[in-house]
């Protein structure tokens, strides 16, 4: 990528704002993650409950194999 040292990944949200992140070039292929709940945000950062018709309110399923060791030995994270 020549002189590019950081990637600014951008996408338009429901308010017309340019959401995104700065990422190091070395991690580009991983993509990144955002909290889907930002689609419930208004300009003033208040959150609006998701309407019933939105399927994105469903919780993801997880499996035992997805549990990863924690940085804190007292717990585990899935």
């Amino acid at each position, binding site marked *: *990528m020549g*002189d*590019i*040292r*950081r*990637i*600014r*990944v*951008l*996408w*338009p*949200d*429901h*308010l*017309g*704002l*340019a959401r*995104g*992140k*700065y990422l190091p*070039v070395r991690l*580009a*292929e991983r*993509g*990144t*993650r*955002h*909290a*889907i709940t930002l*689609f*419930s*945000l*208004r*300009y*003033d950062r*208040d959150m*609006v*409950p*998701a*309407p019933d*018709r*939105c*399927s*994105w309110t469903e919780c*993801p399923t997880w499996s035992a194999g997805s549990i990863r060791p924690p940085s804190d030995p007292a717990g585990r994270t899935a």
Partner: protein
Amino acid sequence: MECRFDPTAVRPGWEDGVGVVMGDLERLGLTVPMAPRNVLKDAVAAWEAMGYTPQIGIEFEAYVMQPDADDGWKPYHCPGSFIYGTGPLNDPAGVADMVYRVADEVELRLESVHTEFDAAQFEFTLEYDTALAAADEAFLFRTMARDVAYERGYLLTFMPRPIIDRGGNGLHVNMSLLDADGDNALLDPDSGDGLSTLARQCIAGQLHHMSAMAALCAPTANSYKRLQPGQLSGYWKNWGPDHRCATVRVNPERDSSTRLENRMPDGAATVHTAVAAVLTAARLGVEAGFECPDPETGDGLETACTEEHTPDDLGAALAALEADTAFVEAIGPGMVAQFLAIKSVEWEKYVAAVDSVAEARDRITDWENSTYLPYI
């Protein structure tokens, strides 16, 4: 949710050492239905299934603002400016000029830049392209332009009507359709005005679904300070050849550049969503075989051939969107449900902030300035 992008699509950005790229949203392996880029992809795919490739050209209008004495913003001081102006008299500090220079450096393809009707207002016209590419380019351009201006101490605002005694900021969406041979399907040299039946049905669809489109194309309480009679915006439910007071304007040329310009959308709209709304309404007009009304014969300022117009305010626009079940089903019920949930609360907040919606129609409220001006 995951944000994925193609690393090979990273392009030079406007910050030192930073490349930019458009991201796509997924969750649990599925596209996120509320994401505007996905909404537009679906709208384009529906046209492609009919054998047409949508082409889009975007025109932005925006005001340059400079700091005032109260930690706020006031219009850029340019007393010698005039419409279709260029040079230092129209852009004393070179703000628009710098935006143009940076756009050139990062290959964001501008077709023209000039001053608009009122002092401190500029128009930025981008080159046309396929719909998604054009929307992406417009989105990146707006982001870049605001960044560049802000770095230099100015606010470039695309807010629909930030200054009550000056005109509003539109986001004009120009559409055309290429057929399977790559020819402009809006043309018919054998028709009286050179427009094809397809073109007429596209116009009819945009007018038929105009009230539903309004919420997505003019999505703020401030938007309806622009969508009023005599504002050179898409207020009346009309269309016209080279008519700048018609909601759908058709340019006078009859060649590959023939296009339908929807003048209702404003700068607060998400570009991808506004383009999707225009394309969806147009497609519905074709699928239903709507008859196109006669073109506007009045000036659209003091006279119009119709009494129908955009909703009077955001609340009415949201109700109109919800009521147009055909449009909602076509553009994406999941996206619309979330949009209505967000915007309904926004409208309630605005109503609570003003003594009277009718009284506030002719002024820009403190609520609008604090809610919208920092972000749009």
